[in-house]
């Protein structure tokens, strides 16, 4: 019921010490080599690691110049565009791109717009003009809509949306002008590092166990009960249902499945495994085969075994 552990000491990992190391001068010589970037192998950096000479290259994001060298300031992969060297950080906030699917949470209601936390550097903005309003998709916005914005989304509400454009300050503008998008209910949120969510054909995943997944590219993942097909369709736009805060009746088997899927995602995030639809499907089957209690995934070695089994299959 209650277990204490020690903080695992990272320094006991001896692989670092075992690997052969060159004299710093020799390493520098290797780094300045131009061919260093042309290889297909992505190169990982440590903060403070010399990447290249500042005379031949320009520094980009994630780097700084000290004396003659371009030095990485974050852990990440080195990227080069012509003479510009950047390091794309592994642990970072979400970098939005137009067309990305994100899951966000309303933080503020402002005149004609909502502020949305989407795990980015700035809050995203959802304009009143970019949501579906009751009474038809193509309706003009009225003053009465402005006065009842909290009936659509209020603080704390979760929604799924698409990145529409960027403002001049870099904040993203979202839209929910599709019946796929809108307010989220019947489930729970799991947060993972954004880099673990790959761009997929579809970010709406239905698992056969009666669970729907929405993989937001910002690392917010919504795990919910499967929506009935009858809810979809252009004709069936019902403002009551779209902006409802009421959950459907969910049986305990589905609840158990939701929490099992959430735990699988947490285990993968902990082991830093990128998530894909096939991986999640196989992992769910594996967990059902093991017939393990879902909580053991997080507590015991079952999580490690799961990741090991998946790395063999995929």
């Amino acid at each position, binding site marked *: 019921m209650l277990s204490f552990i020690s903080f695992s000491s990272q320094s006991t990992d001896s692989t670092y010490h075992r690997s052969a190391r060159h004299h710093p001068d020799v390493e520098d010589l290797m780094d300045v080599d131009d061919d260093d970037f042309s290889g297909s192998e992505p190169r990982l950096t440590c903060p403070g690691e010399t990447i290249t000479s500042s005379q031949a290259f320009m520094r980009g994001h994630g780097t700084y110049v000290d004396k003659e060298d371009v030095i990485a300031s974050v852990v990440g992969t080195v990227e080069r565009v012509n003479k510009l060297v950047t390091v794309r950080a592994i642990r970072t906030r979400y970098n939005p791109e137009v067309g990305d699917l994100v899951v966000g949470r309303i933080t503020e209601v402002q005149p004609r717009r909502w502020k949305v936390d989407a795990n980015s550097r700035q809050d995203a903005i959802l304009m009143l003009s970019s949501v579906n309003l009751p009474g038809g998709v193509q309706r003009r916005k009225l003053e009465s809509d402005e006065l009842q914005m909290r009936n659509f989304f209020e603080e704390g509400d979760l929604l799924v949306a698409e990145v529409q454009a960027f403002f001049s300050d870099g904040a993203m503008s979202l839209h929910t002008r599709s019946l796929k998008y809108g307010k*989220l209910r019947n489930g729970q949120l799991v947060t993972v590092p954004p880099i673990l969510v790959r761009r997929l054909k579809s970010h709406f995943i239905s698992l056969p166990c009666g669970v729907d997944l929405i993989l937001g590219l910002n690392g917010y993942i919504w795990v919910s009960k499967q929506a009935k097909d009858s809810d979809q369709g252009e004709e069936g736009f019902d403002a009551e249902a779209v902006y409802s805060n009421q959950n459907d009746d969910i049986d305990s088997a589905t609840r158990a499945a939701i929490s099992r899927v959430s735990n699988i995602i947490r285990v993968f995030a902990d082991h830093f495994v990128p998530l894909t639809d096939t991986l999640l499907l196989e992992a769910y089957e594996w967990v059902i085969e093991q017939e393990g209690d879902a909580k053991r995934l997080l507590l015991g070695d079952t999580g490690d075994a799961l990741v090991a089994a998946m790395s063999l299959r995929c």
Partner: protein
Amino acid sequence: MASISKAEKAFIQSSLLSDPPLRADSRGLIDFRTIALESGVAPIANGSARVSIGRNAQDGGGGTEVVAAAKLEVESVGDGEGADGGRVACSVSCSPTAYPLLSPNALDDLQHDMTSALNATLSHPTIRPTNLGIIPGKKSWLLNLDIIVFSDAGNIFDAIFMAARAALWDTKVPITKSVQYRAKKGETQAMDVDTDETALVGSALDTRQAIQVADFELPDYWDEGEPLDGRQAWPVCLTLNLLPTLHFLDATLQEEASVPLKLLVFYSFPSDATPLLRGMRLLGTGVSDLTQVKSLLKDGEKYARNVWVALEGKLKDEDFRRNQKARERFLNR
């Protein structure tokens, strides 16, 4: 604290109330997440500890993380707040990164709430350690217990009290020796410093000693000494999250946001006496009645004993790790 949507709140509540009760991460109602604890993390403190509840096993991220450090300071009795026999002052500060959505003012309020809960319990005169005095009526130790909250993933009060207990368990009080000024025989004018070997024990041969003690010195280094008295007295905290008709332990932030009421109980379990309830607090917007609180106290005592036993085992392990094992490692180097 965390803002969650009405739908999430309803989902969490209905899952808890369903049969069998189910939590977001499939834990049982009285299961804790894994707790990591390490003592002696701050080298210049007299005692310190770091506690993390529910951190990820692999990458070490997530979870509630708290660091506690105890520092002793000499204080003159009489002027200011100094008290004869020493005192304990606690403070909790929250890193802004732990609550990124809170404004600085709200963060101050939160820190103040946490400090008051900790201070009211740990600075209580009834559990003041007996070895905080230096010179009776003149000097005493002031024990500053500072706690920093680095991240909050729920159940922050339990983590704070665990870290506090671990840091106080780890605290060593430097041994002091009293010094008195005594005139040498035949030289009535010149004063000379002499150390008094028998210190506060007092000698039958010299009755003046007790009143003439003027100052003290440290025979050892400042970081050596005897353990702070009252290891058995420092309480543990247990948070019972109350959703009408049931209660559960070690809530995550989302769960905390969806329960109307939390009951904090502070228990200590001295080995030779009955369990002591050191304090309790009701937090939240809900209400509770006396019969419910009585039954909750009984349950709380049971759970708190589990926490106490597990924590004590871990603290002894830590002592062993830092003393005996470190010595062996040094020898086998």
